[in-house]
């Protein structure tokens, strides 16, 4: 299969959907001639023009609300928030308006909008440009939340998100933009709500999100060399969450590790853990463990930044520990 980057995959999804459906349009800061802070929409202005590739002022609340209003009227806006950290400015329009309108209005309205935003640490951008905030969105009924880890998922999920009649928060990871991976030719859709096993294994279920999937795959190689076969489950969407696939894996392995980059306390790892305990307690041979960002704002220094985010070696160590192997050692996740 042809290989393209995660960024190219997102571009393909946007371009295909914009060509397919003229109700789809983009709005966000510097998405036109600049091409977006991460270059995702480079070239779109030329193809689709100013009306559909709409550069906005620095008005996150206003533009997310405008997207909700346009969606209510039957358009299908895709808003880019430059860094997910800034979505805190728009949360009212997203979570109290877009997410709730349909329900408050008694099931009448449809709000088919997508909010795209990159998150994650690792670029030295410090506390206000490096957060992982999926936990905020997951908590508001009415929103769907997608977090692709591969180019194929990025393309397929984004196309599905754009066609979905509900507000979808589509979270990209900055460190993934330039990673390549196979993406099928032609129409490629990934339904919201279906997890994927990124690597099968019998010894332990590792539920990994977004960029953690990549680290998990690396860790799996190291562990495989020691005879440990971990199964990597990528939920791909957090709402809806594919509990069945997760539980099925847990049933087979009996051991669970959950890895995400967001701060540990109140992160989605807790929710996934809780569901497994509630529905799959009897499958468990050991306590579930979470590997997550430490409960600090992301520090600027490269050295510190690396320390607050789970790394490949942390996954390896935790997996060993959970399997009672040597070398588990001290943990780095508080």
């Amino acid at each position: 299969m042809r290989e393209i980057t995660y960024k190219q995959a997102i571009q393909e999804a946007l371009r295909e959907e914009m060509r397919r459906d003229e109700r789809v349009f983009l709005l966000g800061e510097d998405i036109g001639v600049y091409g977006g802070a991460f270059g995702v929409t480079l070239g779109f202005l030329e193809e689709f023009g100013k009306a559909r590739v709409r550069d906005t002022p620095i008005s996150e609340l206003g533009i997310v609300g405008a997207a909700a209003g346009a969606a209510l009227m039957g358009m299908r806006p895709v808003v880019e928030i430059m860094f997910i950290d800034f979505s805190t400015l728009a949360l009212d329009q997203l979570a109290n308006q877009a997410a709730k309108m349909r329900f408050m209005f008694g099931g009448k309205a449809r709000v088919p909008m997508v909010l795209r935003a990159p998150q994650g640490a690792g670029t030295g951008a410090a506390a206000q440009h490096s957060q992982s905030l999926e936990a905020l969105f997951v908590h508001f009924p009415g929103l769907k939340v997608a977090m692709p880890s591969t180019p194929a998922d990025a393309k397929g999920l984004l196309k599905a998100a754009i066609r979905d009649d509900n507000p979808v928060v589509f979270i990209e990871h900055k460190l993934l933009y330039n990673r390549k991976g196979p993406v099928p030719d032609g129409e490629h859709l990934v339904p919201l709500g279906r997890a994927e096993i990124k690597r099968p294994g019998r010894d332990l279920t590792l539920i990994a999100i977004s960029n953690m999937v990549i680290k998990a795959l690396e860790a799996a190689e190291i562990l495989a060399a020691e005879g440990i076969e971990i199964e990597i489950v990528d939920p791909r969407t957090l709402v809806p969450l594919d509990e069945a696939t997760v539980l099925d894996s847990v049933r087979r392995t009996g051991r669970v590790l959950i890895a995400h980059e967001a701060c540990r306390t109140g992160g989605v790892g807790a929710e996934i853990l809780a569901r497994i305990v509630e529905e799959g307690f009897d499958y468990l041979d050991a306590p579930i463990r979470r590997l997550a960002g430490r409960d600090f704002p992301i520090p600027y220094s490269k050295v510190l930044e690396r320390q607050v985010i789970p790394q490949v070696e942390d996954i390896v160590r935790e997996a060993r520990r959970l399997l009672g192997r040597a070398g588990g050692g001290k943990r780095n996740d508080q």
Partner: protein
Amino acid sequence: MSLTIEALLGMYRTMVRIRAFEERVDDLMMKGLIHGTTHLYIGMEAVATGVCSALKPEDYIASNHRGHGHCIAKGADLNRMMAELLGKATGYCKGKGGSMHIADLERGNLGATGIVGSGIPVATGAALAISMRKEAKVVACFFGDGAANNGAFHESLNLAAIWKLPVIYVCENNQYAMSGPAREMFAIPRIAERGSAYGIPGATVDGNDVLAVHAAATESIRRARDGHGPSLLTCETYRWKGHSRSDANRYRSKEEIAAWQARCPIQRLRRYLEELDGLDARAAAAIEGDVRAEVEEAVQFAEKSPVPSLEGAEADLYA
């Protein structure tokens, strides 16, 4: 101004309908038959009526927490409104929304919202949709003086201005945001002056004069429909009742209330119509009788409607 007597009578009827509806709601609240809170529109009828009568049926409005008047002026079904207030399955929102969230999408009411100012970005987005589709429609966005101090106002008016969107921002300055007096919450005498911050026209009218509101709205709507972009119309008015159920009216005087009540928008239009020989006491009583009957019918419809259930509510959450 070339309004026919019929048109004027239509406005009069709308205002009386709003008044009657609100008085009945007030009464039902007192009796404990409506739970939660409501924000009554009594005293402000000329604003919604003046603006909506200048709109076409295919135009849109965006409403706010004090939304019953907007809703009625845009032609809503009183039965479904009252049923909603009583939390019934036949209500506009199947009992899920209540007073602060009535939407009537069929008639172009994009919905009320309980978060002050939050309808402004949504209305702006609706106007964006219209503009992108090159339709000749407009959105009238209602909000209070209090909302004009929220960031949502600022960001939205600027967006509409730079994109020349077909929206008219109708600020209902009823002098207070809950207890916050506009005279203390703004350091400018007229809220409409804020139009100049966005390069859009700002006009101030007597919000108790439905004809003045209608005229100013007509002008703003024409501008918007012709592609010249948004405007900010401030209507000076007053709410007669407390802010909401729990208001003890500590922040204003009886005299002030009485002075504004003496400027009743309904009486004012009535006097005008009487001068024109368009309305006499009999005709006025007939209108009054009609709308009271409509309202009673609505109450009965609501009362005998079933309560909702959560069954199937997932489909009301996700499409």
